[in-house]
């Protein structure tokens, strides 16, 4: 079937009418499909959805997120993951199965204000999303620069199969860890590279809705490297 070109839509705008299925961020009114948010419409194989241009972060299973420890109880840490839901990191995830709330002190491993790269194990909106930091490239962040962008612009920053972020990393020798929740940590030994990477990310956040963004970013990265 046809792929209609993406179009900017606002809440209440009719995207298409006829025999279509309503998906993410849309609703049906008669045989019309209406957007419920500000975003880019996307019609594929008779399915209509809107890709959000604004909005907060809603945790999803298997998402990689960057979080900040904000408090702890005897059994778990509470983690701010830039969402309306706070993440929960169980102590047994860090101390192992023989964790004992009597002998182990949670603050010895992670204190308030520490940043972590975590993966969401389970998020069903009935309880706080469950996090884990056991796994490759997960755990406490010791160095780097923390940046925050709108969570809805994360897919644009990553690009198709990681093309955009790879381009930035290759051009600046920086290492960027992107959380799906809009937080990112950039580490780069060269301060010029760091500044360039930050500028590129800010450009993407500013112009995420514009076509040919990849070329623009590439142009910017090359022009400043001279």
């Amino acid at each position, binding site marked *: 079937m046809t792929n209609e070109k993406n179009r900017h839509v606002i809440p209440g705008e009719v995207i298409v009418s006829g025999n279509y299925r309503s998906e993410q961020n849309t609703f049906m009114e008669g045989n019309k499909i209406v957007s419920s948010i500000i975003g880019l419409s996307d019609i594929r194989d008779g399915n209509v959805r809107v890709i959000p241009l604004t909005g907060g972060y809603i945790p999803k299973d298997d998402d990689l997120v960057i979080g900040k420890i904000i408090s702890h109880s005897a059994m778990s840490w509470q983690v701010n993951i830039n969402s309306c839901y706070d993440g929960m990191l169980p102590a047994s995830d860090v101390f192992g199965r023989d964790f004992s709330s009597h002998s182990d002190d949670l603050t010895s491993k992670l204190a308030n*204000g520490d940043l972590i790269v975590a993966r969401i194990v389970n998020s069903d909106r009935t309880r706080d999303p469950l996090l884990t930091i056991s796994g490759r490239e997960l755990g406490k962040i010791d*160095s780097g*620069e923390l940046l925050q962008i709108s969570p809805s612009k994360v897919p644009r920053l990553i690009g198709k199969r990681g093309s955009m972020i790879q381009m930035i990393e290759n051009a600046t020798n920086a290492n960027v860890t992107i959380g799906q929740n809009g937080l990112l940590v950039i580490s780069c030994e060269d301060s010029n590279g760091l500044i360039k990477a930050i500028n590129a990310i800010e450009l993407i956040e500013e112009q995420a809705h514009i076509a040919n963004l990849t070329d623009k970013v590439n142009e910017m990265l090359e022009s400043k490297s001279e």
Partner: protein
Amino acid sequence: MANSPIIDTLKKTHILELLKDGKRLDGRSLDQPRELSIDIGVIPKAEGSARARLGDTEVVAGVKVQPERPFPDTGDQGMLMCTAEILPIAHPTAETGPPTPDVVELARVTDRGIRESKMLDMKQLVLEKDKSVIGIFCDNAVTDHDGNLFDVCSYATTAALNSCKLPKYEMKDDAPVKIEGEVSDPPIATLPVSVTMIRIGEHILVDPNMDEWTCLDARITITTNSDGNIVALQKGGSEGFTHEQLTNCAEMSIQVGKKIREIIKTASEGSN
């Protein structure tokens, strides 16, 4: 606030590293406050009002005036009351409900600055001794919170009181009656200005923003009057200051306060 914001360790390290070279994260020098702007008369129905914005911290102050029965021990003086409230729109950690201890402190420090500087000549606010006096109520609403609420509340209150108009009252049958259409200027004697400084390690920083505020070891708020005399003090934080640091703070509060007083004066004159 009960659940005060927690700064991430990366940023805190960054702030401490920069301080070693005498620098701040936002590029200010240590004794430089953020840019202050004051708008007068932002609430049309209030007798006086002001919006003070210092960097990204914003406070709206409103003054209401009404006759009151005086306190038994101060029957020959008018009544003054300053309050403060952090609205939920000001910051993610701000909640509605009864005031937390630091909001109570905020209101008291603001009130003390006005009261102890004798900004208003309270003796002129008596309608009939021991029976009826003019009550002046100044309410501060924090609409944006990026640290250092003490100073912004002080500036908003001072500006609102300085520009307010008092309605006139006369006593009829032992009760105060408002004379419609007649107003007078308040009896202003001086302009109090508070300056808050924090100590992080060995460094003293004027007008800390929220990030710096979360790193503080000790803080001090010093209010000075138009003559450059210190009229009120408030010390907070878990640690202390050395004698030398206190002297520095006092001098800084006078110098910084002088510039800020000019901004408040200019704003008030512009409104008249």
